[in-house]
């Protein structure tokens, strides 16, 4: 398949997701449309960032791509093949292709499970790899993400937030997936740790030719990591394009509002603000 059109590894066609809100005694149930027809395609080894505020539907879309939820309408294609998880549960082969990393590394690891078991569990469920090799692979993966093999005997509470997010990434990589869905993977982390995790993600992408679906609300992080960006607002993709185009010349008013609201650490902006405040103060005292 050399045709450029066919190189998309993940593709969504008119994806719609409806949630029904249970009604009360006197009112009927209500349908809420969380996604209103989303189209996208991501090429192998690239990063698509999905940007939006809470309630925009970005996590809903991430869950559809990660094969957790089925869309109400529309089609999801992985490697050019349409996937319908309502008709057939995805088998081990499909599960190995797509994996997910969640936002909160404190909530996504079982506190009673040792790290070694956390990492080998996907292999136990999806493969027939023998125990000795599972352990070996888990220890190798720990080193890949910047931890030590001896960490496999420890429990999640013994790790910091950044280390736990590394563990969550390691677990997602155990099946050698081709697509990694990352739902706000650095939002819960401190700035210094965020930089380490972003660097790790960049290294892993190079090494394994991973495709990332990167959900975030932080435009500065998106600018650093994305190739393409989709801006979601109230379930609609209001703007979609390459990172360069979108950051150089945002078109949609919502995208512009997002940019305007993002704090800037630019020296000229700070200088202007300090000057404004000084003038306002002098105006008061006169």
């Amino acid at each position: 398949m050399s045709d450029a059109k066919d190189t998309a590894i993940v593709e969504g066609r008119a994806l719609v997701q409806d949630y029904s809100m249970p009604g009360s005694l006197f009112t009927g149930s209500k349908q809420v449309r969380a996604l209103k027809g989303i189209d996208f395609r991501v090429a192998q080894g690239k990063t698509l960032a999905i940007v939006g505020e809470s309630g925009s539907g970005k996590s809903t879309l991430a869950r559809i791509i990660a094969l957790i939820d089925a869309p109400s309408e529309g089609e999801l294609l992985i490697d050019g093949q349409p996937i319908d998880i309502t008709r057939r549960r995805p088998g081990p082969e499909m599960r190995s292709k797509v994996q997910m990393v969640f936002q909160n590394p404190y909530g996504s690891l079982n506190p009673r499970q040792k790290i070694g078991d956390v990492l080998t569990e996907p292999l136990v469920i999806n493969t027939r790899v023998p125990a000795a090799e599972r352990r070996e692979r888990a220890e190798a993966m720990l080193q890949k993400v910047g931890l030590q093999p001896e960490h496999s005997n420890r429990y999640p509470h013994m790790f910091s937030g950044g280390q736990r997010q590394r563990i969550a990434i390691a677990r997602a990589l155990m099946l050698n997936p081709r697509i990694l869905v990352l739902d706000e993977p650095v939002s819960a982390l401190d700035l210094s740790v965020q930089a380490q995790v972003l660097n790790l993600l960049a290294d892993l992408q190079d090494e394994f030719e991973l495709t990332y679906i990167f959900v975030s609300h932080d435009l500065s992080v998106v600018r650093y990591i994305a190739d393409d960006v989709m801006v979601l607002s109230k379930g609609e993709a209001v703007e979609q394009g390459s990172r360069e185009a979108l950051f150089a010349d945002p078109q949609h008013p919502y995208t512009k509002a997002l940019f305007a609201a993002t704090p800037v650490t630019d020296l000229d902006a700070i200088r202007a603000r300090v000057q404004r405040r000084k003038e306002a103060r002098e105006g008061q005292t006169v």
Partner: protein
Amino acid sequence: MAQLNIRNLTVKFATATGSFTAVDGIDLHVDPGEVLAIVGESGSGKSVSMLAVMGLLPDTATVTADEMTYAGRDLLRMSRSERRKLIGREITMIFQEPIASLNPSFTAGFQIEEVLRLNMGMSRKQARARALELFTAVGIPQPEQKLKSYPHQMSGGQSQRVMIAMAIASNPRLLIADEPTTALDVTIQKQILDLLMKLQEDYGMALILITHDMGVVAETADRVTVQYKGKKMEEADVLSLFESPKSAYTRALLSALPEHATGERLPTVSEFFLPEGSE
């Protein structure tokens, strides 16, 4: 005279494995009408030092300081009842999780009127009228209706506005805001920061803003103090801090900002700055 002046503040917690020093000899002062940002990552002791000022730390904490004065009055040696007259009236605080800070069983109006009746000695009628005024001042849409709403019926941004309304109800001289926008979306964050800055200017109060977000610092602070593991790393006016940071830690923090990334890789703090006893 400084609105708040702290010299050599140390806070220790008694834990099962011995004493843990959360704040280690911090000096800090804020002038009337000034916006001071305290920046640090989790574990830097930035919230603990302000909770010590408010007297909100648990009994396991030991607070010592050479000086802790509010407008020249000694907070450490003041009687409990005297201190209670200051805290919540002249010094107020808002917290990170607006929804968790409100009582889910009472309406927003009841909670703010309670503050006004208890702290300001207002009658029910006066309190009702003042609550409406405050809700309007902090930009809550349909304020009359929102007074009757319960916290779960409001969005995060609206709840934070309610918290701000309560905090400014007594016309405080010092407002401490602990990560007031961390739980909020970026467009709402902008609105809340703009509101805090406007109120700060209108009321002329001193504002201490605790944050880990350098962007928030750049958009609000007059002066900044940077903390790391309970110690003060640097203190500077906001422009000098961003223009020519003196401490290695501040430089590391600034270069770890994704928008400052120049090359392929983000410099990490540990590349610049190896603290003692790091992993």
